[in-house]
């Protein structure tokens, strides 16, 4: 009985291990290297996480106004630079996006008005959901999100 059970166990293990060699169309263990868009998305997401944490620190009084604005500006410029590089590396998207960074839950409705303006530098935006490619100010978001951050 024990020998039968052991033999069955060994047989099952061998079958599972050998299976990829006998079936057709094995997927690679190594997924394709992240494309540039995905890498850029991750970088932008990291920057906006950092901005949210900065806003939380500011609301909690841990950082003074001057330093807060300085760091916020630096993050926005960096985000704008990444988005600009992304749009340059993907010329088929044209000069801008019809949608860009937005909070989860927003749908893909087109812009209410073609003449949306950046609240920070007053540059023209394709729509109100797109971050500003001039100063990097994030997309319009509900104020309740400003108390959200990701890490201590």
């Amino acid at each position: 009985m024990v020998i039968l059970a052991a033999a069955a166990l060994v047989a099952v293990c061998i079958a599972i291990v050998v299976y990829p060699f006998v079936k057709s169309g094995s997927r690679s263990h190594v997924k394709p290297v992240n494309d540039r868009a995905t890498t850029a998305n991750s970088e932008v997401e990291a920057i906006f996480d950092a901005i949210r944490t900065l806003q939380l620190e500011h609301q909690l009084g841990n950082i003074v106004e001057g330093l807060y604005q300085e760091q916020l500006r630096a993050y926005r410029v960096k985000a704008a630079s990444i988005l600009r590089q992304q749009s340059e590396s993907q010329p088929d998207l044209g000069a801008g996006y019809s949608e860009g960074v937005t909070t989860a839950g927003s749908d893909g409705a087109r812009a209410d008005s073609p003449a949306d303006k950046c609240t920070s530098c007053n540059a023209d935006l394709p729509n109100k959901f797109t971050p500003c490619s001039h100063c990097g100010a994030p997309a319009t978001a509900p104020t309740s999100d400003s108390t959200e951050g990701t890490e201590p």
Partner: protein
Amino acid sequence: MADLGSISLLLALALASYSGVGSLLGTWRRSPQLQESALYATYITPLVLAVATASLVGAFVTKDFQVEYVFLHSNRAMDIQYIWVAFYAGNEGSLLYISFALAVMSALAIWRSPANVQDTLPFTTAVLMFVMAFFLAVTGFMANPFDKLPFVPLDGEGINPLLTHFGMFFHPPALMAGLIGLTLPFAFSMGSLLGGKTADEWVDAGRTWGIISWVLLAGGLLLGSWWAYTILGWGGFWFWDPVENAALMPWLGLTAFIHSIMVQKRRGMFRMWNVVLINAAFGLALYGMFMNRGGPVPSVHSFGASSLGWIFLIFLAVGVLVPLGVFFWRYPILKSAQNLDSMLSREAAFLANNLLLLGIAFVTLWGTVYPLLSRLAGEEEITIARPFYDQVNGPLFLGLLFLMGVGPLLPWRRANLASLRRSLLVPGAVALGLVLLLLAFGIRQPYGLLGFGLGALVATGIFMEWGRGTRSRHRSSGENYLVSFCHLIAANRPRYGGYIAHLAVVMVALGVVGTSFFNTQHDVVLAPGESTVVREYELRYLGTTEEFKGNRTEFRSTVEVYRDGKLRYTLTPVRAFYPSFNMAATRAAIRSTPIEDLYVVSSENLPDGRVGFRILVNPLIWWMWVAGPVVVLGTVVALWPQRSRAPVRIPARPPLERAPAQASGTVPA
């Protein structure tokens, strides 16, 4: 049953070895079939080890004493619930448990690995599987729990009486899982280096599994302290025993790592630091296993004399030297993305945190190895006792407590001194007020005052931030305060989970300071009817009953406790003698409240009917034990997945086309 277990062990070893080699070969030869096959081998290894585990448990349940391990660690009189404890009570069973735990965690980690580590996952898998193969090889060929005796004994020797305690159901499994779990963040780090990755892809996976190992180790250490407090009968909870130190040191390294990794995640800094920290923590975990199984230093915690010392010493050497070699090989590419902007910043606080924690770990390591070194030098063995650790590590721990209070108030990159002073005003005032109050009550112990003051600083800072954040959210959203508070935590889980864990550390500090500096100990011999006074308690010894219980003789002493002349309660310390082990074990009688513990243990039953008692009053130790569930809660909150907040939507069509209003897909991360 035992034969099935043996075969399963060897099969698991074969699978782990195949998986490790196959992952590397499959990557090198660019063979997707081999890579997938190696992956499947990783996933079925825990299932095969589950069969081995079930075989050993089955041997205990069926009382198959021909299996030597079952014979040595159980008998017919053993209650069935202790089979779980007996499973890992000895070297062989604990090695099987460690292998099983590593197999399960490895399979989970690889299955749930984030997309951005897929490039280096074969290297990570190889590291995990080679470590597992080591443990399985040792278990299979040198310490096999399924070895049989040449005869069938009628009964076993029984389980060590010290292990028949509730804490033993959790302390060893948590500690061993935490120590071996360190392999996971180590493997992700090594995988990243071996794969030549210069960025921070491994940080998320490293942080997650680092925190999981950390909380398992923290829980294991607290439970072990609780076990020592209740069963060893000396009234303390930490002896700076070499094996205790061997579990504390990797925990210190991990604590530094899980904080320092946040800097790498946020700012791309401390890359070298984090590699060094996780390598050091892993090396210290291997050192702990060597101490526990090699038996170079006797300890109540170790598995006793063992022939496995040399193999664990070799593995320790490999586990330290190979990562060191890889670190120096990849050193040029580990440059930080940014520099420290200011010494008054959260990054600088984390740097100071790293230095303090490593300092404590080094002091502990030095005190632990010094007796070995003195013995090797041919001199008389010099033991390092508790006062050394207390005097050197005590101030360092107080420094850490200070950082815990100040660090969270510092913003990233640069802080303004004025805003920091403003943030520290109330916590500092509360701390100072508490110290003055304690001085007014006649408390003069400087370290005790400092400890209480710093604890108040940390706790006040945390509660103040919670209050400010809740108020801010209440104002902006209109939610009531309770809902605002819950949403605040939910929206900032890593941050506030960390604060809950910090509160748990303050609770532990409270217990340590209270017990270390303000306890009272009184040793007395009493005849029936006699009393003694300890602080405000009067204890009257009534008598002792003797009861034979199968494998032991129990001596139950009854002690009445009076306060202000009134009988408050009765305590029953127990002392049991186990003839088969020729040893006595005690169960202290403890009356525990948040203010203090009254601890009574009987040390000796004299022929004339008198009994020796040790009576202690331990202030605030209750907070130490309650800190355990709090630290687990904080960790769960910190690790709870947070939904992605800013998915980038790439449009399906060029922007000049007016697409109808419909949700477009998100780009997968």
